[in-house]
């Protein structure tokens, strides 16, 4: 019956198998945190959001229908939760931006690129990450969600439509408008790789 191994794990968990739920967290927890980090900068907050998402998944497992793809269910919870978080953040009084974050040093030392990167590559990666974060934060939320799902998660438009509860033509338009904004915001980065 179950179309994929994750769906089989969810069905096992619905039957009371907690180990199956842990297997799902161990398989998708880190990827979910990476997804949440496209919405919140702070790693500790992103981890907390990931925990919230899996708590919702745990509590709401009965709502899962095995004919649906597990990742669609997971992305739907995660997207709604992250957008709610972004919305809450907008209502909060924002502290002034840490001046240290503007001079090229990262706010979070863990945000550095992998250990193989040279200091120059790290600096470039951090600067690009900041530009992308700023670009994402300016997008309308539905564009932001569609863009993250398409560009960073690699989801096909059909699945994005299911995650966002909208149509494929609407997803096509959301992803396109967001990509046009990205092209404008990141214009100075293009061709930079060829010079290096």
């Amino acid at each position, binding site marked *: 019956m179950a*179309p994929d191994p994750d769906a089989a794990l969810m069905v096992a968990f619905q039957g009371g198998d907690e180990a199956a739920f842990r297997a799902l*967290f161990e398989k998708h*927890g*880190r990827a979910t945190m*990476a997804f949440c980090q*496209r919405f919140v900068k702070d*790693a500790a907050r*992103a*981890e907390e959001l*990931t*925990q919230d998402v*899996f*708590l*919702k998944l*745990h*509590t*709401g497992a009965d*709502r899962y*229908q095995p*004919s*649906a793809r597990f990742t*669609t*269910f997971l992305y*739907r919870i995660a*997207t*709604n*939760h992250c957008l709610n978080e972004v*919305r809450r953040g907008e209502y909060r009084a924002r502290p002034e931006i840490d001046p240290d974050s503007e001079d090229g040093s990262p706010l*979070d030392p*863990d*945000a*550095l*690129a*992998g250990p193989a990167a040279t200091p120059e590559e790290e600096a470039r990666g*951090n600067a*690009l*990450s900041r530009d992308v974060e700023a670009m994402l934060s300016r997008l309308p*939320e*539905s564009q932001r*969600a569609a863009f993250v799902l398409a560009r960073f998660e690699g989801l*096909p*438009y059909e699945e994005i439509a*299911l995650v*966002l*509860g*909208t*149509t494929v033509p609407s997803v*096509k*338009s959301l*992803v*396109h408008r967001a*990509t*046009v904004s*990205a*092209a404008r915001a*990141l*214009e100075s980065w293009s*061709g*930079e*790789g060829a010079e290096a």
Partner: protein
Amino acid sequence: MTRREIHVEEELTALLDGALEPARRAEVEAHLAGCAGCRAGRDSLAAALATIGTLPPPAPPLPGFEQRFYARLAREAPRRRSLLERLGARPLRWLVPATGLAAALAVGIWVRQDRQRADLEMARHLDLLENYVEVASLDLVETPEDLDVVVHLDEIREGHP
């Protein structure tokens, strides 16, 4: 700029994503062959995608990621479950907001495949679940009156996708 040209421009990202039907793809490519403006647009989008492809991955979690989650799960899951059981004693149908039902019905007209329908049905239930859990986290739901608040949360929220 012709209406048709605007349509081509709007489909350049889908073209790069390989998301166009073969016939439409051929039309867009034929247009690109004769239109420098649209080619420049496509190249600018492609450059953005290439730049994004060089973005370093987000920082991995600190060690103990799984253990921290399991500890929180052990603390919080029983209370969430018990609240959901109390709410679940009512028929789900009653709990589905009318707007959600209407939207699901409207969507059902164009959805054909069973899998998609299952996904949408699930998504509809999930919106309710979102509400349950949000309210549960505030310890607000104690009486049937509180349930009304849960049911209407979608209407209270703004900008829900």
